[in-house]
């Protein structure tokens, strides 16, 4: 007679296979960032070099900046593990911990959210907020409430934007000398002019095609809808994300923007297209609204999350004084991930009988009220300016 190993059913696990599991998903996530990284390197490095506005070495700066973001995050987590984990401080022990923590991802995403000429110390500070405050303090991978990269970005955005702008900010050497930009991004143009006018919002940057391809000023990773879509497609095919989260989110922003445009007297489709292709909507849709840890788990939760996110993005963007609604709305909704998960799970099981129906009613009701509120207020935004409405709610 022999003594055998214990264990719990099922004794077959898909994750025992080499080609399936969280590690593979996270690797896929990084691969999906590649088109975005390559595009931004092309746009902010290679193309600028070809224009003759920077030197050969500087050409590699965007790439170095992004990789540095990943590297710094990994180092910080390593140091955190070293400091907190008294039992095992060997290099091997730390490496093992890091191998299931996927620390490079928040760093890479963080770098992609930031403007090209962010000073390195600001990047380090943001990475600290992201990995240590945003993730490790909560208990590490799987326990964080906020999207780490987004938290780092938001904190920096609220506190150090002036520093970043002084250092050169969003505009690469070629963009900085284009007069028509007048030192503003498309969203900046909307915020300062307050008008829905093709000639102010789109024409200075070329055409909507440039918005789609991504040859407009903006943070490193957010400008190219095309590159982001490639990444998103890859993630969907590899079953890392669900297709409907980005589609519903972008669709909501598109739809609401369209109505807002129409209310302001221009029902052209260019405005909603401008709205989703400018700022971080596309990037957030594919890489952050789908981030599994900090967004709801079940299908219905994801759907509600995407809808709410769309409404809040529009609300924060067009009503209130924030130039960019994406990050704020995401961070804000991260707080509600847990309750959304809980209520939608009950709806899933109880369907429309009590209390599922009740919860369903509350969630849809809330969503509708918010959407209507946003529309009413945003339709007025160009006449009545309501400061900080986003924070009043």
């Amino acid at each position: 007679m022999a003594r055998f190993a214990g264990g719990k059913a099922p004794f077959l696990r898909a994750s025992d296979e080499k080609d399936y599991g969280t590690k593979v998903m996270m690797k896929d996530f990084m691969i999906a960032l590649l088109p975005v990284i390559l595009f931004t390197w092309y746009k902010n490095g290679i193309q600028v070099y070809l224009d003759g506005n920077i030197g050969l070495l500087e050409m590699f700066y965007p790439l170095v900046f992004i990789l540095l973001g990943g590297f710094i995050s990994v180092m910080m987590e390593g140091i955190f593990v070293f400091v907190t984990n008294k039992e095992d401080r060997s290099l091997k022990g730390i490496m093992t911990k890091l191998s299931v923590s996927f620390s490079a991802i928040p760093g890479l995403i963080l770098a992609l959210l930031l403007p090209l000429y962010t000073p390195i110390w600001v990047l380090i500070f943001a990475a600290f907020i992201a990995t240590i405050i945003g993730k490790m303090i909560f208990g590490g991978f799987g326990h964080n409430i906020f999207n780490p990269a987004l938290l780092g970005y938001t904190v920096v955005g609220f506190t150090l934007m002036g520093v970043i702008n002084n250092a050169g900010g969003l505009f690469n050497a070629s963009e900085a000398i284009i007069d028509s930009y007048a030192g503003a991004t498309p969203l900046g143009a909307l915020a300062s002019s307050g008008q829905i006018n093709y000639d102010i919002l789109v024409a200075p940057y070329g055409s909507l095609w440039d918005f789609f391809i991504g040859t407009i000023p903006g943070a490193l990773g957010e400008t190219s809808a095309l590159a982001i879509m490639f990444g998103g497609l890859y993630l969907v095919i590899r079953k890392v994300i669900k297709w409907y989260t980005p589609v519903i989110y972008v669709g909501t922003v598109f739809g609401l923007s369209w109505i807002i445009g129409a209310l302001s007297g221009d029902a052209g489709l260019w405005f909603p297209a401008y709205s989703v292709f400018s700022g971080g909507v596309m990037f957030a849709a594919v890489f952050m609204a789908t981030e599994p840890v900090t967004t709801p788990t079940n299908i219905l939760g994801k759907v509600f999350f995407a809808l709410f996110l769309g409404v809040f993005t529009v609300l924060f963007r067009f009503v209130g004084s924030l130039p960019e609604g994406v990050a704020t709305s995401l961070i804000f909704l991260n707080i509600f991930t847990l309750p959304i998960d809980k209520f939608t799970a009950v709806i899933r099981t109880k369907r429309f009988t009590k209390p599922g129906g009740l919860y369903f009613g509350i969630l849809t009701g809330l969503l509708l009220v918010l959407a209507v509120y946003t529309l009413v207020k945003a339709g007025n935004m160009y006449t009545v300016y309501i400061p900080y409405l986003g924070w009043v709610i």
Partner: protein
Amino acid sequence: MIFQKIKGVFIDGKKDLCKKSPLKEYLSPKYVYIPLLQRTSNLKAEVKVGDEVKVGQVVATNEQQMNVRVHASVSGKVTAIKKVWHSSGKMVDAIEIENNFQNQLTESIKREENVDSLTREQLIKKMELAGITGLGGAGFPTHIKYKTKAKIDTVIINAVECEPYLTCDYHFITTYPEKLLKGATYMMKAADATKVVIAYKINNKQIREAVQPFLPKFPHVELFPVKNVYPAGWEKFIVEQVTKKTYNGLPAEAGVIVNNSATAITFADAVEMNIPLIARPISITGEGIKKPGSFYVPIGTKVSELVELCGGYVEGLDPLKYNYIAGGPMTGRAIFIDDLVVNDTLGAVIVKPVIEGLHPECLGCGKCADVCPAFLTPTEIKKAFERKDIKLLSDLNANKCVECGLCSYICPSHVEITEAVAKGKDLLRKGAK
């Protein structure tokens, strides 16, 4: 969401390990150990140490709970009552019978004249007296299902065997196709139904080939292929596919009774020869077994003897790096000591390597909720269990979990999520009392 339709997941069957070799009979072990536990019923021994018993003689009963009866599976002398390992993962008392190799039959085992004139009541009585239970793993006394007041129009024979590795039903059916059809027909009569549907996995065309030649004699029987996914063999899933109807509690609500194919074959013998449930098929398989195979053995046979017949474990097997699983790999139980005996629900023993690895935490991907055939949300049930929130557990229908294991199977982070849901289910049951 709105149209909840069970999809199931394709899982590599690994059935080839044991499919090729035919069903072998191993009917005369030196000792058998009849466990005094059946499903949740503790049984009372009806024989004493020193008694002589014959094949088919009642040796243990529990009259309070659904009149469970267990029979001697060999003839010989009761030599002891001792503890053995049982597929439930516990050690239980068992009646040890030393085989005298005479194969003396008890008087009631004889050919039944006029099988065709048996009434519904007589058939159900036979089921009860023969101690027939669900051989698919549930172990529920079959006669209870047939005592339903509901109008039954179809008896579904579950020949799906959707768990990976398992081939005992497959072997049993392909060896006794005619008995299967007969048993199913008697079941149909016992249910006052008009139709039999045999559900089998579409890739098991050998089952169709084996059964088809006999079908002209059984015009009321229909073969129904189901998809090669897990859990295609789950009662509710089969009923939904066959009848396009669903139910909440028992299949009888949809006008059907579902029985395992091995149960039907056993019932054929019980009707025609009055042989009670004393033997069953079992697969001994897995990567840790030298020559995996399926056997037809008396209840109470030691599994170790069957492993010997398979050539033993593979060379150099380190038991601490292997699981010894009673039942299928998805729902079975790890047994620590390889001293198990065959009981009525044990369809397989699988010896397979433990795959070690470092796994991240739950990342909230939601795959577990996507695959759950009962449409539950395992992660939330887990949280509710951790907070001991009984109200929430009931809002989340934790009691509806069928412990199919799919959520843990699919989890990319190797979370023991099935176990967590099962605990939540337990807490809900205890808390609700």
